[in-house]
């Protein structure tokens, strides 16, 4: 009973053998699948049902009363004051804002996370895991308190401004808090380990003999990076990007605390539908739309990566 297939070995695949393979794979994935079906997907299906119902007066839904309003209002809305039907541009503005932030966060996290992961992966063997812990230690402190700590560092009388003032580089404090830069800093801060850890996991196995071979062939460092290292750590990079991009789309605590909360993020929009907005069908519909968009992107990744990356020989 082997548990992995060697993709290059195609000569002795008997049907019974293949069937056992498939069974083993299903058994292995069973715990993960069942827990998620129970505690994530099952409930989600309920929300899907809710998205097709009429919203209750005080939250919730009127069970078994159906309507497409929830879905329609994701894209189209009647103007508040003159009742004309038009695109729900409030939703679009909010979606676009969140999307921009997520993309920026992912790219910045990659820019800082890649060197960091590489650095850790090239430390002496017995200290590597210490560095990994060092990256995660800040995250043992709660998210809210960490964000307050960031506020403390960047506000007008915070340590950065005070140091710059003392050294004489600036004359008056730079307004950093409640700016878009602050939000980006906070987001990257929160999501950094999700980028670094998968990257590290795949970099750690990097075969430096190949790198050395590249240099032997007179390749420049840049070329070595591009042609040898990057392809080998691609799975880690992609995993990191997924882990940062997707959850950051729904983030709203950090943007609110560091950006001042004047502008809604996608997460706020959805949350308000389940709160004071009392429009569960709309909230469900927006979330499921978001999920579908993301799911298609992910499936695209699976199709491509597993086809080309099956079994390094």
């Amino acid at each position, binding site marked *: 009973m082997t548990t992995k297939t060697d993709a290059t070995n195609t000569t002795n695949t008997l049907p019974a053998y293949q069937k056992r393979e498939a069974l083993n794979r299903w058994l292995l994935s069973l715990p993960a699948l069942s827990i998620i079906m129970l505690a994530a997907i099952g409930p989600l299906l309920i929300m899907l049902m809710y998205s097709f119902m009429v919203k209750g007066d005080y939250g919730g839904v009127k069970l078994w009363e159906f309507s497409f309003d929830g879905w329609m209002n994701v894209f189209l809305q009647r103007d*508040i004051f003159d009742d004309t039907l038009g695109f729900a541009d409030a939703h679009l503005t909010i979606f676009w804002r969140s999307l921009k932030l997520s993309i920026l966060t992912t790219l910045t996290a990659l820019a800082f996370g890649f060197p960091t992961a590489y650095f850790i992966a090239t430390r002496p063997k017995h200290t590597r895991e210490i560095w990994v812990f060092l990256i995660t230690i800040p995250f043992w402190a709660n998210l809210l308190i960490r964000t307050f700590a960031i506020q403390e560092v960047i506000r007008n009388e915070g340590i950065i401004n005070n140091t710059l003032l003392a050294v004489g580089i600036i004359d008056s404090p730079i307004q950093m808090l409640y700016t878009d830069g602050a939000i980006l800093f906070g987001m990257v801060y929160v999501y950094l380990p999700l980028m670094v850890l998968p990257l590290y996991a795949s970099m750690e196995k990097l075969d430096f003999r190949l790198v050395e071979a590249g240099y032997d062939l007179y390749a420049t460092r840049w070329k070595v990076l591009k042609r040898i290292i990057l392809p080998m750590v691609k799975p880690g990079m992609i995993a990191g990007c997924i882990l940062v991009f997707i959850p950051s789309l729904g983030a709203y605590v950090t943007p609110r605390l560091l950006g001042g*909360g004047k502008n809604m993020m996608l997460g706020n929009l959805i949350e308000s539908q389940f709160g004071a907005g009392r429009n569960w069908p709309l909230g469900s519909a927006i979330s499921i739309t978001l999920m579908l968009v993301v799911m298609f992107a992910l499936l695209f990744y699976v199709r491509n990566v597993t086809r080309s990356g099956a079994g390094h020989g």
Partner: protein
Amino acid sequence: MTKCKLLTAAVALALSAGMSTAQAEGELNIFNWGDYTSPEMIKKFEEAYDVKVTITDYDSNDTALTKIKAGGHGFDMVVPSANYVPIFVKEGLLLEARPDQMENFKNVDEQWIDVAWDKGRKYTIPWLWGMVGIVVDTSKYKGDINTAAIFLDPPEELIGKINVAPEKNDVLYTTIRYLGGEWCTDDKVFLKKVRDKLVEAKPKWIAMDYGTIEKFASRDYAAAYYWNGAAMRSRQKNSDVRFGYPKDGFPFFMDSLAILKDAKNVDNAKLFMNFVMEPENAAMVSEFAKYSNGIKGSGEFMSEELKTAPELTVPDEFKKAGGFLDSCSPEISDLYTRIWTDINK
């Protein structure tokens, strides 16, 4: 493999933590706003009646409503705001506990008995009340602070340093009254003006956030539209802070204690309700949360700072301006939500 042993121990602990063991005579499970229940008072109650009390927090009326409606929550009491009490009652979630027939009901301040959301107090008793108003650092601005213009038509000195509480109802209420309208109006032409005014004012604010007290202390904010209790605490950290009452209209709030219909410990809940109506105990609640309570005679037991705080007593001239937020019909509520989203987008 000590890891395995640790794991089994952890699992065993977790499962046993789930089964609650009542070593006391009884239990009481209170569902309240975060940081709103005096641990001292709870201890006193626990000792007096041999009841084990648990407090679980929520941070918004809607979260509380959602959780209670879903059922299976295990709570006995909840503390909704005034405009949510009718909703709880309508949805059949509250027990008609008849506090007006309890022994200590005579201590309830008359003005809080026949309130719009619970006439005659058949379901709830006052927990704490206060108002949302203007908070200004007077070292930055010397003008009249008793007006909503501070955040709706801000003076030069305050632009870019104002915080507005991210509370849909409170902000809309004051803006509507500032522009001369009535709460729960459905006049769309008028509401457009309300929306436009807020959209125009928003760029002049720096934030719409909680956590104002520290920001006044560090002088990151110069003004805010915020709760009076927080204003008092801000003044304690920054002595230039003053509280203003918008003369065109400002909202009162009151959170009231209620018993849930599917409560398991109704007797203990009633005991607690009666207990809170005791002036000495009500004073403890106020001391902890720094807001006024609705029980007569509690003033004697409160500290000097609370008794003399200007933020906690409404000057006579502004008493008329304050109003409670009625719960509007679902359609109007909806409309207001859409306006709020529009402002925030």
